[in-house]
């Protein structure tokens, strides 16, 4: 299994959350407690929790660790509180996380911040 840094938590040996912030794309750099990218592996299910700073590229994470890969491409619901129109993300079968922009709004002009996503999904069988 990929070595992933554990977050501080009450029970670090029992289904621990890991810090995925090192996998975030270069323009979405995290820093500080309010901006985070965390993951949990629990048997057949993976959970992601993401809140970004500003970004100007469609790729949020080039490649997540294999342990977080889904069985196929997933479209994931997200939200950005300063955007009236919906936003989402696409998680490819090889762990590439990109912005899903259903209505073609200008998201990559630097104005997109606070992109928040909480999702649980099936893990690839391996």
């Amino acid at each position, binding site marked *: 299994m990929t070595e992933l840094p554990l977050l501080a938590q009450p029970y670090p040996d029992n289904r621990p959350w890991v810090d995925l912030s090192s996998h975030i794309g270069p323009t979405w750099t995290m820093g500080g407690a309010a901006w985070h990218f965390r993951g949990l592996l629990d*048997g*057949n299910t993976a959970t992601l929790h993401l809140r970004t700073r500003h970004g100007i590229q469609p790729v949020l994470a080039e490649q997540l660790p294999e342990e977080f890969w889904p*069985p196929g*491409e997933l479209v994931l619901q997200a939200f950005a509180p300063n955007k009236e129109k919906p936003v989402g993300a696409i998680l490819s079968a090889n762990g590439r996380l990109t912005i899903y922009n*259903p*209505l073609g709004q200008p998201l990559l002009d630097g104005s997109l911040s606070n992109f928040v996503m909480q*999702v*649980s999904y*099936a893990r690839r069988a391996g």
Partner: protein
Amino acid sequence: MASVLEMPNRYPGIDPWFDLRQFAVNGWQMNSPSSSFNFFAKVSGNDVTLQMHTRGGTAPQIIAPLPDWLLPEMGVSTSSYRTLPAFQRTVGAIALELYADGTIHAAPWSGAISDGSNLNIVCQATYTRKAVL
């Protein structure tokens, strides 16, 4: 449960995910769990977790009655359905209705759906399972 296919899982015996796309109707059919159009669910104790990404449908009903072990608990509510949050390409935030019999429908306010152009409904939801089967 025998009629529902278990997806390939890392740990098949522990809270496995199931392939439910056989229950899609009215043109909402998905391709497979490993495609970008999928419908699968996990049962974990009292909870069911759904994940869906549809193709284009021609009627409000998306899903035929689900098996008993996936039905929602309605409690003392007089409502005959649970409302699930969802979103959709070209539309935005919408809602789905999960009925007591396990059918899933696009909510009436979720836009026109009869011309087949209504697609890419994405729903991720967890709900309480029916207590007595």
